[in-house]
């Protein structure tokens, strides 16, 4: 079982990978620490600087749509954000996120508000969010055990380097 506590930053539907990190920033540098300062800048200027280690992104449907660039999920991680909670994720973003070690949780996010402090508990058979503002428990899609193992090793390459198998 793993537990996380973090503050929610709430975004809408269809947050594409260009919003997550603008293409022109990637032309300047591929240093993730640098890029982390600019995440979401087109839709929420200053977010990358404001966000603190352990904070959580909460979004609507189809998070991470658009081009399949892996640098999007890696920039979120580099900003210190370990978890994204959304109604749904775009398929390639989901793969890239898990492979890079970013925890992605699917649930109905409608009741979560900006600034809510969330406690997240990930078990082998259940993932649940406790919202400290209204004492609500939100049941989430469970994360397959094998993907939890990849996540706890910090991603697919680290996992494979350690166990030499998938």
């Amino acid at each position: 079982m793993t537990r996380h506590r973090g503050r929610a930053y709430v975004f809408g539907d269809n947050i594409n990978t260009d919003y997550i990190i603008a293409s022109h920033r990637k032309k300047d540098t591929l240093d993730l620490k640098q890029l982390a300062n600019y995440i979401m800048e087109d839709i929420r200027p200053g977010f990358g600087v404001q966000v603190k280690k352990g904070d959580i992104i909460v979004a609507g449907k189809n998070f991470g749509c658009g081009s399949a660039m892996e640098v999007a999920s890696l920039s979120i991680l580099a900003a210190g954000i370990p978890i994204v909670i959304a109604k749904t994720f775009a398929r390639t973003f989901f793969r890239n996120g898990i492979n890079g070690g970013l925890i992605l949780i699917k649930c109905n996010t409608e009741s979560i508000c900006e600034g809510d402090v969330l406690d997240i508990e990930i078990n082998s058979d259940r993932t649940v969010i406790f919202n400290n503002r209204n004492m609500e428990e939100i049941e989430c899609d469970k994360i397959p055990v094998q993907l939890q193992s990849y996540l706890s090793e910090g991603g697919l390459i680290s996992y494979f380097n350690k166990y030499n198998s998938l």
Partner: protein
Amino acid sequence: MLGGTLAEKIISEKCGKRVKAGDLAIADVDCMVLTDASAPLTLELLKKMKKQELKDPKKVTFVMDHYIPTPNAKIARLHQTMREYCDETGCNLYEGKGIIHQIIPEMGHAVPGSLIIGADSHTCTYGAFNTFSTGVGSTDMAVAMVSGKLWFLVPSTISVRLNGRLPEAVDAKDVILWLAGRLKSDGVAYKALEFSGSVINKMNIDGRMTLCNMVVEMGAKAGIMPFDEICEKWMRELLPDKSFQPINSDPRAVYEDVIEYDLSNISPQVACPHNVDNVYPVEEVEGVPINMAVIGTCTNGRISDLKTADDMLKYYDIHPRVRLLVIPASNNVYLEAIRQGIIERLLLKGAMILQPCCGPCCGTGNGVPGDGENVISTANRNFLGRMGNVNSSIYLGSVQTVVASAIKGVITDPRKLSY
């Protein structure tokens, strides 16, 4: 036990146990493909791996198609890196032979019943050959190259039954645009689509490739065609000595949904700027002025497509204001078009014939449109700026609609021409 869908059965076969929709499977990958647009990051990630020796380099194929011939020194260096890597490891490399999604089937790498991944979103094209084929990221690709395996969430499947008989001047491209207009860009996200019905039963391999190529535009993970006489004939001619295990769904397969359409009365379809699901029947967009018309790409650059263009242009001329670009999808297609006299006739009509490659489809090749210009193309995406200029607009249609529009200089219903 209930029956399995095509996706469930192929993935089950490759992971050695029975899996169903929603399960996580660690499956053996039969074929891995990369382009010169996706190889660089994969090669970087491979350096992070303790073990870098490839499980089976013969299952890995690199194709240079986005930047062919090389436009600058930076890309030339990148191509050098790819060549060196393939020399060292023994991976397959195709350079200057055509577009990946044409080359992989032509060279016999897409075999019925197999599981294929590609670091390119249109990898789903090979579903036409009764394979489970899907696009993945660079980390996925690096790990799969070394381990020979990858994780998959087994998708639920939607059975798409296309009934009736396609009317005159309507083909596979119109069918998939019509579906995209109905299902929308994330309408079948994560799902596998299993195609069947009388329209599919009569559709040739080229048409099936066009259909499967664009399932990703509706968010699908894969689109899979049944193994039937048409697929078997194509495979037997290509690989007479190869044994393969085609897979078909069980009669009692469990589908998340069954959608059924009768396509006997649909019109040619056009996707309008700037989304693939912004689709209208051609009669509703007729008259939009066109500056450039493109025939080619991994969606519609095959010999049957070039033959259609040729058949139409035997009776008409290209409008003086329109530039017609024709890009055969592979050298084999190009050679066949030369043998049939198609290339000569298209040149005499004033078409520009480009080296087989991705061309201007995603702005990496020559053919960038000018400011304020409208393009009509047989490609698969019309996003703002896709072809390299945010001040231009892209319309998508079938070869027949593109050629009819090139002839008239405005978007034109091909049913109004006689050919």
